């Protein structure tokens, strides 16, 4: 006996097996991301009021690059459309057209990941520096023209640097949660001791530094959940791209032997892909905008 309904729908449910399978899988994914979102809410609601210099416990906000995030959102949306067009091409029986759209989809996926990596790198080279007098600055280090990643105070001390050059952000990049009063330019300048004005450069003595930390997961619960959720989402993008590339360009022999099943595969892969898009639709406003 062969396994029935791998291609044709079962009469009473109207579904073929893989479609039931993918929807069940997506149901579990809903719970997975749902748990992360509820963690996000709980951590955020429970976060102590965030004021300098308690960088670590504050809920920093407005640190992500919104134009880039918006662009990336568009990339994902477009890829969702192209994967649909690819599927529709198969339904028309047009394999070359299908492949073109699949290639576009996978390019979008890779583009998304590339942009995300750029953003990650941007965070890994972005620092919060708290001075012993209580003031704090954020900015990029400038060590002989390079912008190093993942440094800490220990790194600076180990390298025996007397002082470090910092391109500080003015006003500094931490913003208070929405609804709070935002710092004005002047206040920020006053806080950084009158330095700056535009993207100021500052020489900071190692001896003055109380804390130096890149924007990495352990810097605070915001970063922790931002990196965890976007990383997990990125893994989904990567996984989806690999599977789709495999189906479209390696496993396309099935188109000849079993076109219906092949089309179903694309439909199922597409469903997964839309779901990844769907997660991002919530993730984007939650971490970038709110």
């Amino acid at each position, binding site marked *: 006996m062969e396994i029935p309904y791998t291609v044709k729908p079962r009469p009473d449910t109207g579904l073929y097996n893989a479609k039931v399978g993918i929807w069940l899988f997506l149901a579990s994914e809903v719970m997975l991301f749902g748990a992360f979102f*509820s963690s996000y809410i709980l951590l955020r609601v429970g976060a102590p009021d965030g004021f300098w210099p308690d960088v670590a416990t504050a809920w920093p906000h407005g640190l992500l690059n919104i134009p880039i995030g918006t662009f990336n959102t568009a990339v994902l949306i477009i890829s969702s459309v192209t994967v649909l067009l690819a599927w529709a091409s198969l339904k028309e029986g047009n394999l070359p057209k299908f492949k073109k759209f699949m290639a576009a989809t996978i390019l979008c996926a890779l583009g998304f990941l590339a942009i995300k990596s750029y953003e990650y790198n941007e965070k890994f080279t972005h620092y919060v520096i708290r001075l012993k007098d209580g003031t704090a600055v954020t900015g990029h280090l400038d060590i002989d023209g390079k912008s190093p990643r993942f440094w800490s105070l220990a790194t600076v001390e180990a390298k025996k640097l007397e002082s470090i050059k910092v391109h500080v952000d003015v006003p500094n990049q931490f913003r208070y949660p929405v609804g709070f009063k935002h710092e004005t330019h002047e206040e920020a300048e006053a806080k950084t001791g009158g330095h700056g004005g535009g993207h100021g450069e500052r020489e900071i003595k190692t001896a003055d530094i109380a804390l130096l930390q890149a924007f990495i997961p352990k810097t605070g619960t915001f970063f922790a959940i931002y990196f965890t959720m976007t990383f997990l989402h990125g893994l989904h993008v990567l996984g989806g791209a690999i599977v789709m590339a495999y189906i479209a360009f390696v496993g396309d022999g099935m188109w000849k032997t079993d076109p219906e099943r092949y089309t179903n595969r694309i439909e199922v892969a597409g469903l997964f892909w839309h779901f990844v898009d769907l997660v991002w639709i919530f993730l984007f406003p939650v971490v970038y905008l709110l």
Partner: protein
Amino acid sequence: MSDHTHSGAAEAHEHGHDHAGHNKIYFVIGAALLVGTIVTVLARYWEFNSVALTVAVALFIASIKAFLVAGYFMHLLSEKKMIYLVLATTAAFLVGMVGLILWSDADQPRGSTQKIHYVP
């Protein structure tokens, strides 16, 4: 909304599947999603001065976008009963989980909601 128009629409939908012209709807929805994204971003710069309102607006737009993706891209508007059952169950438990966790966090006995232990 009579039954009649409804079934007519469903038929047209079935019919449209084989035609490439049906792809148009994907473009329309795709465009709507892009617009939605831009509106969300713009809304953010619009200082509502209320956390609740900001969050509500952002999530409202996101929900509409989610509806479009799920409904049209994932064809949920014309899915089979079994899928609806699975998703309804999931949605119920999701709401239960998030809701009850947040409720538990909010309903604590007097004085215990202090965030930092060393304050008496």
